């Protein structure tokens, strides 16, 4: 967690969109920005890019206030996928509360997916996070393209790991919100265990998830 101050009633959570180069991490954030109402979030901040490729990171902040008055800020980051930016990936990954791994569904990208996932596990360990316990969801993006790995093959690949799996097309704007909601739920579960979100702050998992992703589900919960 980036920041948790019970006195001031502020909690800042970090979620990271990880994955190989050009798998659609920034597109995911752009779609979230488009699909979710602006009342519960800030603007998407896209740091400098080089030829449309992320070189630093993108940031999309979300807000929710718990019934206890705790202001929760959820900062969603992307990392640069290119191999050469490993140090930046490591820096962004520091103190993350949850990770969405965005894989490229195309058959020819399978090796890159595996390499990037290995890199994620390595970097998590290097910044002191346990890859086995950190909230994680996997999204297979670009389902709209031809030459993609079949869903069954992907399911059987990940089945034993128990990691929640989503299929999406960020370009066609489907599967994106579902991925994000699942990441929020698993992150909530982990945070609730350590910070008593429901017991101390009266914030349930559904209120947390819906409050951040569905505008009209719990009016009055949002700050603005």
């Amino acid at each position, binding site marked *: 967690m*980036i*920041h948790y101050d019970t006195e001031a009633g*502020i909690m*800042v959570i*970090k979620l990271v969109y990880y994955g190989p180069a050009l798998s659609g991490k920034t597109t995911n954030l752009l779609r979230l920005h488009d699909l979710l109402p602006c009342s519960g*979030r*800030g*603007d998407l*901040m896209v*740091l*400098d890019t080089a030829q449309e490729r992320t070189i*630093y*990171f993108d*940031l999309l*902040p*979300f*807000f929710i206030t718990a019934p206890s008055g705790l202001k929760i*800020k959820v*900062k969603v*980051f992307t990392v640069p996928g290119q191999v050469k930016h490993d*140090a*930046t990936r*490591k*820096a*962004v990954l*520091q*103190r993350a509360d949850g990770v969405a791994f965005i894989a490229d569904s195309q058959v020819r990208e399978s090796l890159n997916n595996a390499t990037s996932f290995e890199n994620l596990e390595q970097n998590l360990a290097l910044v002191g996070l346990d890859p086995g316990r950190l909230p994680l969801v996997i999204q297979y993006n670009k389902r709209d393209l031809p030459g993609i790995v079949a869903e069954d093959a992907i399911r059987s690949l990940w089945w034993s790991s128990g990691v929640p799996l989503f299929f999406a097309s960020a370009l066609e704007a489907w599967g994106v919100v579902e991925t994000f909601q699942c990441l929020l739920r698993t992150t909530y579960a982990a945070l609730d265990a350590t910070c008593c979100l429901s017991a101390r702050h009266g914030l349930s998992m559904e209120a947390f998830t819906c409050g951040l992703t569905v505008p009209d589900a719990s009016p009055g919960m949002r700050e*603005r």
Partner: protein
Amino acid sequence: MTAQGSISFVVGEEKKLTDVLSESDVLPLLKSVVGAGLDLAAIVDMTGEPLWFFVPGETAPGAMLPLGTALECRPIILSGDIVGRVHLSAGEGIDPALLRFLARVVGDAVNSMVQTNLKRMMVTELHTKVVQMSYDELLEKNRQLSASEQKYRELAEHLEMRVQERTAELKQAYARMLQQEKMASVGQLAAGMAHEINNPLSFVLSNLETLEKYVRRLSEHAGFCEGQLRQSGSDDLAGRVEDRRREQKIDFILDDLSDLFSQSLAGAERVKKIVSDLRGFSHIDEAEYSQLDVNIEIDRTLSVLSSEIPADAEITREFGAIPLIVCRGALLCQAFLNIIRNALQAKPSGLKLLIRTAMNSKDHITVVFKDNGPGIAQDIQARIFEPFFTTHEVGSGMGMGLKVVYDAVSSCGGTVTVNSREDHGAVFVITLPVNGRTDE
């Protein structure tokens, strides 16, 4: 961050408005908007406290809010959060539309400044972070390299030691091999010579016996002839024969002949025994392992050495009743020989050597060699079984004698120890198992 004194950032850490904006950023803006006829332009935080402000003319600190009656506010947003407001106020006379317009312009300008500054800060922080992490990684890599260099250095040093150890081992093995070869060739030579000597010796022996018989018969015959001559009454002829016999000292010759024969036979028998001892000592005719009587082996060794033993040496043998033992006879004899020879060399005159054999336990025997020589100094006792260790002058000995004893006894499954004080002689104790086969 691992390095001390480094700057620590967490990407995405919360920023305050005062972190992002500075007075030099906002004051010119506030100043110019006040120039358009306002009473006050300020940037206030969420509690309404002014962070930066500008008023026309003299600045009077405190209680300047609200100055004017007309008031216009614009929120300042920092990464999606309202963190403060642009606060403009003017007197009655101002056009509200102008005030709103000015507020919007200043608000937009401040917000875009905040946005730009935040991006710049985040990029800078990320850069710092990345550089720091790379630096830490380099430090770590350096540490690992130093460690591995250290390891290789140690390895190299040990390598030298290992090479030295191995070289010493090789040298020992080579010396042992030389010694064994020497022994083997001595053994073969002895065996060959023994064979060559045995053949003529046996016909010398048998001829001597036959010759003795013949001579006895000849002298009998001469006696018979003389008797017959005396009885025939021919005194003259008998007298001449008698004179001739006395002239030739035949009586003395006949007396001496038996001595000569017995001495020659004894000499030849001794040669035969020496040859057979030499063969026995070299164990050239036996399999590597054989059953042998240690007492006999010691006797054999002594007889092989007999030429080296001075007349004044006093060798006492106290042989106990010991069972036959199974071991490599040749090696064992060599071991005995080296110990006895050592004693002979240590005390060339007046040597008193006690050799005692006894049962030690149910399946071990001991052989003790106790001499009255000068003994072995305490500080070299631990080294005497080392190869090439010698107290003799260079060239007079290889320093292998006791090493051979040690190896021989070890290869028979036994042990050898020394107990000595300077000027009080030395005691070597060899303990041997009754069944000393070590290669099974």
